């Protein structure tokens, strides 16, 4: 990244040995420049060249692992340019000042609040465990409890390296994020991070202090760093997020080339406002957001927003092809067919569900295109739908032979009749919103 193929070529052995699987060093260099090969494939590159190439090819925002959770690695400012890489981590805060019941309810919510959507699992990722009293033993016990209860990435929070060490003793194998190295404790916390090989967060009073801290830590050999810019007003936190991402990507400014952590839990008066601040931070660049609690009415919308923001902007979302029973249909229930664009599926299935009429929905793989687009692309047409209906297995589930096609694909009904001669083809409504009214008067 940042280097041309020719520049990379100059650092390679130039022997054209082919051991990397590419015939010439120049061709290999071109592949490296395009991000299509890894330097590790070349067994002969010198140590000095490797260092130069590694630092040149490091992503502008350093990737950081906290246990199984990954953050950073971003390469763009706007999602339409290229897919954002690692979805913002959602963390819930527990502290040693909380009554046990509050800690337990948060851990239970962390474990329970999981949602399946478009075949993806949506859930919170991390638990932030905070020492408020500075008592190492109390903190150690809390960390032990949390790490025993949930399989989460962990953030250990204290101003004191000794307290952090006490917590770490109960969770070292989870590689928790140590929060935070500040101007006052940077040496001690940095040493703990180096010894334990754990990622570490820096917290500065302002951007200059943040830069000082990351430079100090990276100078000590620490690679995995997370930034807290210290701002707790929404306006300043928003500006900081933009400043940090721009500095990393537009200016390739190393000291700010790290993922960030934001604390909506310290920025709002109530749960609703906190959730909205978190949603702003999800869209604008936070690597992790720490929430005061996990409640379905807030977590679910936030997770869906996160999924929306971090999806591939090029590729439409797709639902799996198949037969979807809605409202417990029986052998006389109507059969409707549509394409597998996720939004189409969601809206159509939602309307059928809302109608309370039992029905079978056939979702046909059209590469994630909507009805009109798929029809225009020649994918949602008579012979394709006919073949799909025949092999879908729907005939094992119903007695009748009637099928409803979307109103927008009325033009294909003739072709479909040829493909399905024993079937009655009915043209349904154009808009999904009119499905309930349609189903109420329709007889399969």
């Amino acid at each position, binding site marked *: 990244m940042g280097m041309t193929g020719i520049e990379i070529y100059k650092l390679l052995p130039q022997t054209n040995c082919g051991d990397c699987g590419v015939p010439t060093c120049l061709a290999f260099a071109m592949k490296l420049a395009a991000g299509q090969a890894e330097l590790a494939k070349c067994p002969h590159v010198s140590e000095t060249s490797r260092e130069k190439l590694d630092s040149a090819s490091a992503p502008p925002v350093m990737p950081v692992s906290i246990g199984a959770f990954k953050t950073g690695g971003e390469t763009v400012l*706007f999602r339409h340019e290229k897919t954002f890489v690692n979805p913002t981590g959602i963390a819930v805060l527990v502290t040693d000042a909380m009554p046990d019941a509050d800690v337990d309810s948060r851990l239970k919510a962390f474990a329970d609040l999981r949602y399946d959507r478009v075949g993806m699992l949506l859930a919170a990722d991390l638990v932030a465990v905070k020492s408020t009293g500075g008592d190492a033993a109390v903190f150690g016990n809390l960390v032990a409890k949390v790490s025993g209860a949930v399989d989460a990435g962990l953030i250990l929070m204290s101003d004191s390296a000794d307290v952090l060490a006490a917590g770490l003793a109960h969770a070292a194998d989870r590689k928790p994020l140590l929060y935070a190295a500040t101007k006052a404790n940077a040496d001690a916390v940095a040493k703990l991070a180096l010894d334990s090989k754990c990622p570490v967060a820096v917290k500065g009073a302002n951007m*200059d202090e943040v830069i000082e801290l990351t430079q100090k830590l990276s100078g000590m050999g620490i690679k995995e760093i997370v930034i807290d810019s210290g701002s707790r007003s*929404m306006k300043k936190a928003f*500006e900081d997020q933009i400043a940090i991402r*721009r500095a990393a990507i537009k200016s390739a400014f190393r000291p700010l080339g790290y993922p960030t952590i934001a604390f909506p839990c310290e920025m709002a008066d109530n749960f609703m406002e906190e959730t909205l601040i978190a949603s702003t931070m999800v869209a604008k660049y936070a690597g992790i957001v720490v929430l005061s609690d996990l*409640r379905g009415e807030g977590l*679910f919308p936030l997770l869906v*927003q996160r999924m929306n923001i971090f999806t591939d902007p090029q590729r439409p979302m797709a639902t799996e092809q198949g037969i979807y029973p809605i409202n417990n249909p029986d052998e006389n229930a109507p059969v409707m067919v549509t394409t597998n664009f996720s939004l189409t599926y969601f*809206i159509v299935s939602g309307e059928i569900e809302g109608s309370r009429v039992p029905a079978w929905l056939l979702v046909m793989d059209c590469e994630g295109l909507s009805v009109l687009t798929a029809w225009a692309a020649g994918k949602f047409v008579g012979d394709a739908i006919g073949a799909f209906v025949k092999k879908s297995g729907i005939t094992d589930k119903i007695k009748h032979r009637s099928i409803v096609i979307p109103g927008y694909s009325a033009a294909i009904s003739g072709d479909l009749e040829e493909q399905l001669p024993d079937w009655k083809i009915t043209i349904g409504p154009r808009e999904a*919103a009119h499905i309930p009214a349609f189903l109420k008067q329709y007889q399969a």
Partner: protein
Amino acid sequence: MAFETPKVNYSGTIREITLGTGPKAVTVGGSTSYPFHLFEGTMPHPPRIAMEVLDHRPEDWPEAAIAPFAEVLDNPAAWAKKNVDEYGADMIALQMASIDPNGLNRSAREAADVAKKVIAAVDVPVILWGVANHEKDTEVLRILAEECEGKNLALGPIEEGDYKQIGAGALAYKHVAVASSPIDVNLAKQLNILLGNLGVPADKILVDPTTGPLGYGLEYTYSVMERDRMAALTQEDEKLQYPLICNVGSEVWKTKEAKIAAADDPKLGDAKERGILLESITAMSLLISGADILIMRHPESVKLIRKMIKNLME
């Protein structure tokens, strides 16, 4: 050396558009930078919210959305007045859903009479929103454009298929045209050009990029709006330098997730707060991608979003 945020070079400004007349008129637009990027530009008119009124009694709204309007659901004019007096609405957006040929199919005359009562009941600007049926929208909006001359209403959604008819009404009687295109920067630009060619003045156009609610296409609207602002502000694309309006409320509250009772899926939590957050997270996302006007439904969502705008401005 102190750190300085790398700045964007802006070369364009969003046009200022005024809706309504008199002391309660609302001006939007005027931004010289990306939304809320106040460290490198100005937003002389922070985004505003228009509160929704339906022109007939809603049938499929969840309880949470019905409750705040319980006693005015049959009276759109009283509903509008309640939104202004009680919930502090800056503007009213009248959803003329009753004209839908696939629904109530109310006559244009009848619907226009209801709309006129709403317009008469409030002193804030009114946005009239049809059902995206070209014939029906044209019929109703033509009547209203003529009979409400000088009110400086906003008329929408105006699409490529009916821009001549509705645009002509806006032009002749001095209303604002809401140019609506299906989530595409180039189509948005094209429609703005067509309206310009028709003679609609540049200070009488708002752009509706088409709103995908949370979970149902939000990301498409979000990115189209970011690209739109990018073209308008950094590439001097004059034909995109219009304020953006997003029809949030009705799109969000018709989704399945906004309607499910808490008892039917306990993991989704409290139904009322969930609905409010679905609406306000959609609104929040669109604010930071460039919305100048948000059409919203629930008074609590409106209150939350007002607070967030204030937080980001101050």
